[in-house]
C-alpha cells in the first residue's frame, strides 16, 4: 500500500520527525481556511500515489488567496500519470537553505534493507545514483538488531553535515529507520530533507509504501481511506473476489493459470505462437469451485477474448473442485469462446471426467505448447464456422 504524502507525514510526525505545518483538503474552501491558519505564502501540493509529480506541474505556490484558489482549480483539473487529483496538501512555504536525501529500500541483491543518504536532495534517487554515485552513501540494516544512533551519525557525517544540523538529521534518520521497521515498510523515503534558513531540519516530502502482507497488523494505516486504485473495472472486480487478475488492455486469448509462474510462462507461450494474451490471472492457492467459476466469469467478460486457456495444477488445489467450477460456468453461460483446459495433479481423474462430460478439450499429459496450439486451432475453427454462419 502506497501512502499519500500527507499520510506518510502523519506517520513521520508521530515518530518524532519534524514536518512542515500543513493540512490535506479536498475543496477550495477548505484550502482557504487551511492557508489562513498557516499564513501565506503556502505550497499547494497535489496528493497522488505515482511519482514524477513535481516535473508534471503538480506542485504550486500561492502568495495570497486569489493565487491559492487558482492553484487549487488548476490541480483539481489535472491528471498526473492517469491519476486524478482529489486531495491537495496546503503547507507552509519553507525558506530552503539546503536539501538532502534519506531513504530505505529493500536491496534485492543482499536481501537486506538498504539505508541511503545524500547531500543531493530533491531529485530522484535513481538520478542521484546515476549522476552523483560518489555522493550517495549506503549502509545495510540488520533486521535482527536495533539501529544505533552512532551508525546514523557516522553515515551522515559523510554528507558534510555538521554541528546542530548533523545531530538533528541523525535523530530524524534514526526515527525513519525505526518507522521503516515498525510500519513494515517496503520503502520509506524523505526527499528532500530540508535545512531552512533558520537552521531547522525537517521532512519536506514523504514517500512510504507498506507491505500489503503486513497491513493486517499495522493499525496506523488501517484508517487511511483508499478508493480503489484500479482503473480497470474487471481488475477491481477480480480483486474483490480475491483473484489476482491483470488486464492487458488488448488481446484475444484469456488466461486462467494455477500459479504465477505458470501464468507468466503461459502468456509467453501464447505470444510465441502469435496469440495475444488479454489478461494474466493467477488462481492462487485456495482455488475452490466458486473461485474457479468466478475467475472464468471475469475472463469471459474481458473484451476481445475469443479463446480461453485454462492451465491448472492440483498441487495445493484439487483438480475435481476446479473442474466443477469450470463446468458450472459452462452450464450457466454457454460461452461461445473456445476453451482448452490443461490440468493435472491431485484428483486429476475426477477433474478430467467432469470436463469430458462437458466436451471441453483437455490436455492431460501434453505440454503448455501443445495446449496453446490446440486452442489456436479451435479458435480458427470457430472463426470459420461463425463466418460460414453469417454469410
Amino acid at each position, binding site marked *: 500500500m502506497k501512502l499519500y504524502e500527507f499520510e506518510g507525514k502523519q506517520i513521520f510526525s508521530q515518530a518524532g520527525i519534524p514536518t512542515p505545518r500543513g493540512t490535506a483538503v479536498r475543496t477550495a474552501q477548505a484550502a482557504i481556511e487551511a492557508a489562513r491558519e498557516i499564513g501565506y505564502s503556502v505550497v499547494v501540493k497535489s496528493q497522488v500515489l505515482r511519482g514524477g509529480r513535481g516535473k508534471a506541474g503538480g506542485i504550486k505556490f500561492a502568495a495570497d488567496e486569489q493565487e491559492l484558489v487558482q492553484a487549487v482549480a488548476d490541480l483539481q483539473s489535472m491528471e498526473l500519470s492517469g491519476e486524478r487529483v482529489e486531495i491537495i496538501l496546503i503547507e507552509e512555504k519553507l525558506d530552503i537553505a539546503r536539501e538532502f536525501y534519506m531513504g530505505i529500500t*529493500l536491496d*534485492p*541483491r543482499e*536481501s*537486506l*534493507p538498504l539505508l541511503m543518504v545524500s547531500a543531493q536532495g530533491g531529485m530522484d534517487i*535513481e538520478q542521484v545514483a546515476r549522476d552523483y554515485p560518489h555522493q550517495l552513501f549506503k549502509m545495510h540494516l*540488520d*533486521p*535482527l538488531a536495533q539501529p544505533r544512533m552512532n551508525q546514523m551519525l557516522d553515515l551522515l557525517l559523510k554528507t558534510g553535515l555538521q554541528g546542530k544540523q548533523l545531530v538533528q538529521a541523525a535523530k530524524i534518520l534514526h526515527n525513519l529507520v525505526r518507522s521503516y*521497521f515498525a510500519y*513494515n515498510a*517496503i520503502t520509506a523515503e524523505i526527499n528532500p530533507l530540508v535545512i531552512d534558513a533558520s537552521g531547522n531540519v525537517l521532512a519536506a516530502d514523504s514517500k512510504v509504501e507498506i*507491505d*500489503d*502482507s*503486513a497491513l*493486517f*497488523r499495522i493499525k496506523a494505516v488501517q484508517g487511511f481511506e483508499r478508493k480503489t486504485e484500479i482503473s480497470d473495472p474487471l481488475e477491481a472486480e477480480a480483486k474483490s473476489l480475491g483473484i*489476482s487478475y*491483470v488486464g*492487458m488492455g488488448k488481446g484475444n486469448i484469456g488466461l486462467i*493459470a*494455477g*500459479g*504465477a*509462474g*505458470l*501464468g*507468466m*510462462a503461459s*502468456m*509467453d*507461450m501464447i*505470444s*510465441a505462437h502469435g496469440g495475444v*494474451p488479454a489478461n*494474466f490471472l*493467477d488462481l*492462487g*492457492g485456495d482455488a475452490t469451485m466458486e473461485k474457479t467459476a468466478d475467475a472464468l466469469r471475469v475472463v469471459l467478460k474481458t473484451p476481445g477474448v475469443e479463446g480461453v486457456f485454462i492451465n491448472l*495444477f*492440483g*498441487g*495445493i488445489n484439487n483438480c475435481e473442485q476446479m473442474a466443477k467450477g469450470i463446468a458450472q460456468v459452462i452450464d450457466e453461460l454457454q460461452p461461445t469462446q473456445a476453451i482448452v483446459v490443461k490440468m*493435472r*495433479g*491431485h484428483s486429476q481423474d475426477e477433474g478430467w471426467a467432469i470436463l469430458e462430460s462437458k466436451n471441453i478439450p483437455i490436455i492431460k*499429459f*501434453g*505440454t*503448455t*505448447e501443445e495446449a496453446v496450439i490446440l486452442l489456436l486451432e479451435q479458435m480458427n475453427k470457430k472463426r470459420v464456422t461463425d463466418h460460414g454462419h453469417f454469410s
Partner: protein
Amino acid sequence: MAILVNPDTRVIIQGITGKQGTYHALKMLEYNVHVVGGVTPGKGGQKVHGVTVYDTVAAAKKEHQVDASMIMVPPAGVLSAAIEAIDNKIPLIVIITEFVPVHDSLVIRNMARKAGVRVIGPNTIGVISPGKGKVGIMPGYIYSEGSVGIISRSGTLTHEVSSNLTYKGIGQSTCVCIGGDPVKGTDFVDALHLFRDDDQTETVVMIGEIGGAGEELAAKYVIENGYPKKIVAFIAGQTAPAGKKMGHAGAIVSEGFGTAESKIKSLGEAGITVVRTLDELLQAVQ
C-alpha cells in the same frame, strides 16, 4: 544421492491440525515420508492420520529425531513458528505459507543464517527428491527419479517442468522450489551450490521469473566459480508489462530492474543455456 531430502529424512509438520496440514500430512505419508510428528500449540496428544501432535517443536524433538520441518500455518503465525524451528536447530525448514510479511522473512532469513540452518521459502511448494521423499505439497506421481536437478521460483512451473520431463521419460534428482517472494531463505546460488557436488545430478534446470536479482546473482556465481554441470535456464514473464505485480510478490519489474531481458543476458554471459519457451526447455535437457 539427491540433495536436501532422502529416504531417511524425518519430518514434522508445524500446523498439522489445520485443513491443509492434515491433507498434506496424508499425502506425505502416502509418499512413504517419515512424518514423525506434528506441532500445534494446545493440541498436544491428538493424532492426525496416526501421527502424534505435540505442543511445541521441542516436545516433538524430545521423542524423535527431526531432520526437517514443514510449516503450514497462516501468515501471521509463520514468524513465531519459524523462530521456534530455528531455535530448535531443525536443519531444514520449509515454509509453504504465502503472504508472509516481508519484514518477517527478513528476520527468518537472517536468524537461520546465523543459526546455520536452512530455510526454504516462504511461498513454496517445497522440496521433492522423487522416489526418496518430499517435504512439500507436490503431487508425487508427476515426478520421477532421475538426474535432472530443478531450482524454481514458481511452484506450478516446478510441477509443469517436472511432469513434462516425467512424461518424456526424464527423471529428476531433486526439485527445489525456492519460492515466489522477494526475500527467501534459499536463493538460486545456494541451491546451485548444493547441486554442484551431488553425484546423482547431471543437469540443473533453473526456472526464474521477472523481478529481483536472484538469476543475475546465479550468473555471477557461475562466472566466478565455474560449474561442473550443464545448466539450462528459463525465465517466465518475458511478455509481462512493467510495473504490474504478476501474482507473485517478487514478480514485478520496476524502473527497468529485474527484466526478463537483463536476466537472459546475464545468464547467457555465464555460458548457461537460456531457452525461450517451456518446450525448448525439454529439448535442451534431452
